């Protein structure tokens, strides 16, 4: 800092949240400020702690899937996928190919829906009210498809250990093809409107910079980590489901600032839409549920399975004691880990930029607090 004050001063504590529109839920941070500069940040979480991990110990495996819907309530299907994959790993069953395709199509659509919500709300955080209207219109189209396929707009409870609940409707493939065209146009619209807007660039470029090694040490993942140029994506590094059969790129940032983190999500929307198109081209017929018993009673043991959530690396550590209920379920919540990096990013920034930095991490408080 060039204009360091030459006289004695006291730092002021400024409380932000839990009821603050830019915290995307119930999140509180105490900013220690010196004038307009932030000296330190102390995040306070736990307002939404529901004891999901403890509750999962008294529910059967089938019931735990509903809890996972509610962990990250913006990308429910991605969360279900993480748990059923852990369940499949411990039960040593594999979902039929058609079920895997259905899961990946829905998970990628959910990723697009989640990123669209991020783009819209991030613009609101920075004072632009228009993009959220476009983004929610497109997100609504995706939610309509989810309702058609799973019966619910958000809390789907659609995936099962060994497959999916029911087969997709007959008009699924043409519907998704039409949807992809519409959503792609919508993403392009928001992209053109926002990404290179001068005011938006001034608020985000060079703000909240975090370098690669620090980001890895803080445990960041997903677009927040890739914005710093670290190519870590579970879909590539620990391939699961049918991702190895798809042709896609992982966009990487260079500067690790808010704009990089934002723009990676826009690029990921395009990549995800391309992936869904490839899935539709390869979409096989066949069963949707693995043969075998319907009640999950896995052998005693432990597994760790993870998958790529819109926010990052979502891991599930499952400990089974051989009964029909998990002995311990530990979720690796990407938003929780991304928040660890908040203090590093915000130190030295302006107070107004604290909102931009928090928004660029795209946290979901349901997942942070579980």
């Amino acid at each position, binding site marked *: 800092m060039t204009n360091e004050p030459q006289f004695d001063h006291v730092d002021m504590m400024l409380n932000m949240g839990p009821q603050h529109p830019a915290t995307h839920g119930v999140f509180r941070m105490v900013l220690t400020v010196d004038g307009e500069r932030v000296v330190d940040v102390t995040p306070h*979480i*736990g307002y939404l*702690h529901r*004891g999901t*991990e*403890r509750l999962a*110990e*008294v529910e059967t495996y089938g019931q735990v899937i509903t809890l996972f819907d509610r962990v990250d309530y913006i990308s429910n299907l991605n969360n279900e996928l993480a748990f059923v994959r852990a369940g499949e*790993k*411990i039960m*040593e069953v594999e979902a039929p190919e058609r079920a895997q395709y259905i899961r990946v199509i829905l998970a990628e659509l959910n990723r697009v829906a989640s990123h669209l919500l991020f783009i819209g709300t991030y613009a609101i955080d920075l004072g632009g009210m228009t993009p959220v209207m476009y983004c929610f219109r497109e997100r609504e189209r995706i939610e309509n498809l989810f309702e058609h396929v799973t019966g619910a707009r958000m809390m789907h409870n659609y995936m099962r250990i060994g497959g999916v609940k029911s087969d997709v409707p007959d008009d699924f493939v043409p519907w998704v093809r039409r949807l992809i065209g519409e959503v792609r146009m919508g993403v392009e619209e928001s992209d053109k409107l926002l990404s290179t807007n001068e005011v938006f660039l001034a608020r985000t470029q060079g703000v909240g910079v975090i370098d690669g*090694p*620090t980001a*890895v*040490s*803080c*445990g960041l993942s997903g677009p927040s980590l890739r914005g710093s140029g*670290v190519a*870590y994506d579970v879909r590539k*590094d*620990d391939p699961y489901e049918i991702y190895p059969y798809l042709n896609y790129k992982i966009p990487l940032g260079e500067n690790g600032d808010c704009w990089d983190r934002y723009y990676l999500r826009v690029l990921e929307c395009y990549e995800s839409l391309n992936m869904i198109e490839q899935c539709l081209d390869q979409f096989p017929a066949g069963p949707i549920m693995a043969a075998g018993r319907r009640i999950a*009673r*896995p*052998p*005693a*043991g*432990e*597994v*760790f399975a*993870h998958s790529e959530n819109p926010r990052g*690396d979502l*891991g599930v*550590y499952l*400990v*089974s*004691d*051989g*009964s*029909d209920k998990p*002995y*311990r379920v*530990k979720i*690796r919540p990407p938003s*929780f*880990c991304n*928040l*660890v*990096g908040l203090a*590093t990013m915000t130190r030295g920034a302006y107070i107004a930029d604290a909102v931009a930095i928090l928004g660029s991490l795209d946290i979901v408080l349901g997942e942070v*607090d*579980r």
Partner: protein
Amino acid sequence: MTAQDPQAAPAEKPVRHGPPIVIAEEVLNERGEETAAQLARTLGPLALESAGREDNPWARVDAKELHAVAKECRDGEMGMDMLNLMLAVDWIDRIQMIYVLYSTTNNRKVILKADLPADAPAIDSLSDLWEAATWYEREAHDLFGVDFPGNRDMSPLLLYEGFEGHPGLKSYPLNDYEEW
């Protein structure tokens, strides 16, 4: 339905009627064997027990050695630069800490485990090695009562100030609804 009385003596273990419990076989694949060999070289005789599943080998070490072992995993040939996940498991007679380490350069994962006594569990903090450990440790302190000497800030993270008990433990009562 009445609420469970926290003071009541623990109920006797119910008789299991289900089929006999099967223990999962732990088999490493080729990639897992390579990682396990690296882990064995790094740990040497410090590994008390080791096995693994698919490409995730694990090793159990003494709780006193865990910090040194983790540092060796980070700085040695394995280059584990990310603490992917840390959790505590309550096995009633002991508390097991599990650390999932990940290397973004080599794309390999290993799991370290350490057993702590159920009364007064404590283990050295890894917050000086990985920043990510700070919050994981505060969470484990909240929910399982594990102490982490070396962590600068152990204030409650998920629970509120003054909360009594550790809700992650199996002994913590799960109260049912009561009519009101």
